[in-house]
């Protein structure tokens, strides 16, 4: 699965923006996404990926979160 594509799809759903607006360097803060919402998005991905993703540190950008998720697969 393309994690970046899946994550930006979820982000688009959460923010009401077009997924094409996002880049790896886009910060969650700039999208008004707080850490609880980040956890919720990760939990949505968990269900799709059938893997447990325990966020132990704050993820600032889309790229950081994609790298973290890919490191767990």
């Amino acid at each position, binding site marked *: 699965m393309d994690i970046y594509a899946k994550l930006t799809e979820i982000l688009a759903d959460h923010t009401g923006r077009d997924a094409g607006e996002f880049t790896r360097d886009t910060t969650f803060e700039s999208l008004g996404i707080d850490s*609880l919402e980040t*956890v*919720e998005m990760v*939990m949505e991905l968990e269900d799709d990926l059938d893997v447990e993703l*325990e966020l132990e540190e704050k993820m600032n950008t889309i790229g950081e979160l994609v790298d973290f998720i890919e490191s767990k697969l």
Partner: protein
Amino acid sequence: MTLEGKVALVTGGSQGIGAAIARKLASEGADIAILYVGNPVPAEETVAAIEAMGRRVFCQVCDVSDFDATQAAVKEVIAQLGGVDILVNNAAITRDKVLLAMSEADWDSVLDINLKSMFNTIKACYRNFMKKKAGRIINITSVAGIMGNAGQANYASSKAGVIGLTKTVARELASRHINCNAIAPGAIRTPMTDSMDPKDLQAILDTIPLGFMGEAEDIAEMAAFLASDKAKYITGEVIRIDGGIAM
């Protein structure tokens, strides 16, 4: 019954206030998970009483001051009972001494079991609550955490910490409809208070405006209320059940 279909996890739920809470929540329809350490006999009695009500019950020995052990135990609770809807953090100990005589071990053990345990269980249940977008966390603090109490620097500090933790968790999770409240018992008759020095106990009785000790069931009634939909608009609150000691 107000808690039908819910699962409640009660730490220190084998005896005393914890057992009273476990029984009361079960009587309101909740299935019960108990984590405890110590004497298995009262644990078996509590389990039998809950089973007799027709509720499912999962009971496991777990030192909730141990982070990894707690994560594993909660995972097992979720696997066995299908999730956790209500978390009651009740496990607590006392190691009473004046500060001058209090050892580092006295301090650490009380802080670990009374306060760190709540961090451990809340962390363990956090994702479960987030997925459900609902949850009730009920932390048992003490009037000692509000007023302080000579001879209980460790206990009072741990219980004051519980109040800070309660209000912080309430703020962090309010937007997800996860309510977190604390109950502050005063002098409640339990095996723990039975082990107190009789002079210390009398000194406490003398300070109770209502003039008598409370019962574990008084705390259990409030826990059942806070766990129910009737308390849906209450979060970050500390409710004293103390005969007026700390008013």
